[in-house]
């Protein structure tokens, strides 16, 4: 049990550091950044209660906001993602989720990609809408959401696959 908690704490700190020092400064083509810190919310243990997940996600988002001077944009998006995670899990994993038997380290890659994609698009849409906060700039919101989502999905799926221990 302690081992699991320690893993998650280390993952939390590492993801925040990587996000604020590297990923926020990529600016591919001038504006495209991946937001990989959501991996933490995605891989949070399913058996733990949703209350814990909500609180930890809020803390995670707030930390990212603190580092990037963005008000509460990341916190809001993370909390929404944390709250809707069961629905996304059910849609992408189906029966596996019903029986609470998903192991992220050895799931089918197809299911994993669906899961990451749904979560990323939801998270990024809320985040960029709040960041730009102007309905007349809807094209800009959609553009940023689309390109950043693609980047985030690719990087996140790669990270999850590379760092899971026992994938066949």
């Amino acid at each position: 049990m302690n081992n699991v908690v320690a893993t998650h704490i280390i993952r939390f700190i590492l993801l925040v550091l990587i996000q604020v020092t590297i990923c926020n400064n990529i600016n591919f083509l001038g504006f495209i950044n991946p937001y990989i810190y959501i991996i933490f919310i995605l891989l949070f243990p399913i058996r733990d209660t949703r209350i814990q997940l909500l609180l930890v996600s809020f803390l995670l988002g707030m930390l990212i906001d603190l580092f990037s001077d963005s008000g509460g944009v990341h916190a809001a998006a993370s909390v929404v993602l944390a709250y809707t995670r069961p629905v996304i899990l059910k849609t992408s994993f189906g029966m596996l989720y019903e029986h609470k038997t998903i192991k992220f380290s050895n799931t089918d890659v197809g299911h994993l990609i669906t899961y990451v994609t749904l979560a990323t698009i939801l998270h990024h849409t809320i985040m960029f809408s709040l960041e730009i906060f102007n309905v007349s700039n809807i094209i800009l919101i959609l553009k940023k959401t689309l390109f950043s989502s693609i980047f985030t999905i690719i990087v996140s799926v790669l990270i999850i696959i590379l760092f899971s221990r026992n994938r066949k």
Partner: protein
Amino acid sequence: MQQILNFVIRNKTFLLFLLLFGISLALTIQSHSYHRSKFINSANGLTGGVYGTFNSIEKYFDLKDQNNILVEENKYLRKLLFNSKTTIDSTYIDTTFIGSRYNVTIAEVYKNSYSLSNNYLTINKGLKHGIKQDFGVITSKGIVGIVDNTSNNYATVLSILNKKSGINAKLKSTNHIGSLRWNGKSAQHVQLEDVSNFAPVKVGDTIETGGESSIFPKGIGIGSVESYLTDISGDTFTIEIKLFNDMSNIGNVYILEDLDRQEIETLENQSNE
């Protein structure tokens, strides 16, 4: 009472979600309005420490560029010095002109963003070094922004690439003034709004700070006119400016403190009453 408690317990996840979402939404809305104290900003020990550690590694990769910028600036200053009309005796220093109105502090940029819609920089000087809100921040090439939040050792700078920024600027050739805004589209361009359409604007003209506020002195470069068009109302121009500064590559900055600010502000307040 029992029923209320039951309701709370049954819906505790949803209620917690609403609470947390509400807090973050409130912070977001607050961050979109200018001139209010913010709780969430990167001028603090934790973020400053992390950015400082990584900056000390990162700046080695940037040394060559920063060196070039310094050499360029030296070249410019040398040119001014050698071509000045008065002959300068190196032993004679006229103290009435040196440091009379503006106090300059140097700082290193720890964090710089230019792809968001509200961009901030984090610098490694703070209250301890005499930096306060509303000090101007420039580089050798042009303006960068205005100091926003400060902690003991760090400060955040409201970049000119921020929708909340509105700096007073003018045409170098004719003194027609306008307000500097950013539409969030390109990190190389800002817009000068509300310029009277009597102004003889030409593509390539220089835009500089106006010196009407006590933030920037008069005549600091901003950029050159790239294009301009008449507003819908027909009375004013909106000028598209290409910045002199490369906002994506800022290493060292100068912070300007106007020593006469208090006097000016007191005077302005008196005349307003």
